[in-house]
């Protein structure tokens, strides 16, 4: 069924009896050409692009719980492409371009809102770094706009630019950045994939791989063995756990990142703003809640909940830049588990096992990458060669010294 305004009117006039489920609930077949493990944003996007753009048929997505129940349902919904390094920026700009056409492409309202993102800076050194970043973005075809203090005052009159401790010296804006309704991304990709014949199998946990003579022949699941020509993992957050079934150790640690939503307020904050003197970023959802976050907790965790010192730290950052928000009560907070890789950048690559592919290590930047991650992973699966925009995301980059370390922190995952 195709969704449209006309369809909504027709259904409204006929008692909403014509709506059908957005995707089927099939039982697994004995074998597929491609099995994608992980029904999150990246896995569903991979299935969608594999079927739609790369002409693959006979695909299944296998999900341990329900689709969209992991990090695609737990993030702070921001999209942007303001990266510095050559290995990253073309990829994220490709992703932002896919976001721009996404809703028409998969015929689903994902509420893509290009309300802009503004990174504030508070010192001369930070200004220099942001100018460099802005130039790198422009060189890669993205948009970047250096705003003066006056321009920021005109746009955001409530910001105190003359603060004694952290005066706002300007900001780097990406006007094409913004927010997206995160759950709708998973649902839209799921529906789109399903319409192209992909089997989405929920409540089916992968418990092992069948590997013979260096080739992956399929997966053992709670619903029995399922054979596959290729097995593609996309379970960021649990990557080490899953890949240990294939005897692999990964260059990453799992960490918990907390996010927060305030009670609903009238419109107070246009766009996304990040505070440059601490780690704090905030946007206002369409429901009115202030959605914000900051640092990861900083220790290995699979618990999907964090501890209070980081809550305090994030809220202190918020109070430093937006004292007025201190009057808003916190409505919800939660934690999600990140694959924190050793250089802060992801991996989209084959493994040493024939027919077993890997996508993960997204740190806390996976949501914005969803469309490009799916597209580039589908390219790798279908064509057996990396997509040009994702060619740097290799496993062997640590061995070869080709790290993509955006923050220059070295092999310390909790600092990325």
């Amino acid at each position, binding site marked *: 069924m195709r969704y449209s305004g006309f369809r909504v009117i027709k259904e409204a006039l006929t008692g909403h009896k014509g709506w059908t489920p957005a995707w089927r609930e099939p039982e697994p077949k004995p074998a597929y050409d491609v099995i994608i493990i992980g029904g999150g944003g990246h896995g569903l996007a991979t299935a969608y692009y594999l079927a739609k753009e790369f002409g693959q048929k006979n695909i299944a997505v296998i999900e341990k719980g329900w689709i969209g129940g992991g990090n695609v349902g737990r993030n702070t919904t921001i999209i942007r492409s303001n990266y510095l390094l050559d290995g990253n920026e073309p990829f994220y700009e490709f992703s932002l371009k896919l976001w721009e056409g996404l809703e028409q492409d998969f015929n689903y309202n994902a509420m893509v809102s290009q309300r802009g993102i503004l990174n504030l800076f508070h010192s001369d050194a930070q200004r220099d770094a942001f100018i460099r970043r802005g130039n790198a973005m422009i060189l890669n075809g993205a948009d970047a706009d250096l705003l003066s203090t006056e321009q920021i005052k005109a746009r955001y009159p409530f910001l105190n630019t003359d603060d004694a401790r952290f005066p706002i010296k300007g900001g780097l804006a990406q006007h094409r950045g913004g927010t997206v309704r995160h759950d709708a991304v998973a649902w839209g990709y799921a529906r789109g994939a399903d319409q192209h014949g992909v089997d989405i199998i929920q409540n089916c946990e992968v418990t092992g791989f069948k590997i013979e003579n260096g080739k992956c022949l399929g997966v053992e699941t709670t619903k029995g063995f399922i054979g596959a020509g290729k097995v593609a993992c996309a379970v960021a957050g649990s990557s*080490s756990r899953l890949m240990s079934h294939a005897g692999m150790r990964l*260059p990453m*640690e799992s960490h918990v990142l907390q996010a927060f939503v305030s009670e609903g307020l009238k419109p107070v904050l246009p766009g996304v703003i990040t505070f440059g003197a601490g780690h704090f970023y905030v946007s206002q959802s369409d429901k009115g809640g202030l959605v914000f976050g900051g640092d990861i907790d900083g220790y*290995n*965790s*699979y618990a999907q909940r964090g*501890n209070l*010192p980081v809550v305090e730290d994030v809220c202190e950052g918020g109070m430093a830049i937006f004292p007025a928000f201190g009057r808003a009560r916190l409505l919800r907070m939660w934690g999600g588990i990140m694959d924190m890789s050793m250089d802060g950048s992801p991996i989209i690559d084959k493994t040493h096992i024939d027919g077993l592919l890997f996508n993960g290590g997204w740190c806390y930047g996976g949501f914005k990458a969803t469309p490009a991650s799916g597209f580039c992973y589908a390219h790798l699966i279908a064509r057996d060669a990396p997509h040009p925009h994702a060619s740097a995301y290799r496993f062997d980059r640590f*061995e070869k010294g080709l790290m993509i370390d955006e923050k220059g922190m070295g092999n310390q995952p*909790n600092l990325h």
Partner: protein
Amino acid sequence: MLINHPLLGPRDAAEFTYLGDASLIDRPDWQAPDAAQAFVEYGYMRDNPAGWHRELWFHEAGDRSWLVVTRNTLTHEISNVELARDVARARGRSK
């Protein structure tokens, strides 16, 4: 989280900084023939288990000792805290 410091008693985890897996104590021999590969494993690869994990914490805002904390990554429960010095000596490292 509270970390039960062997010398100081229970201390707030916020006083500590986290390094990572306690296997980092076992630095490879740089003169071994396979040193390059061993250092790739040492520097970049991690077990990253879901469950009990031995890890290095540094009491930065305290007595600046290194600790080996045995902690469950699924529940954040801490079962054992040792001085990293003692662990390293028991493995024949250091004096």
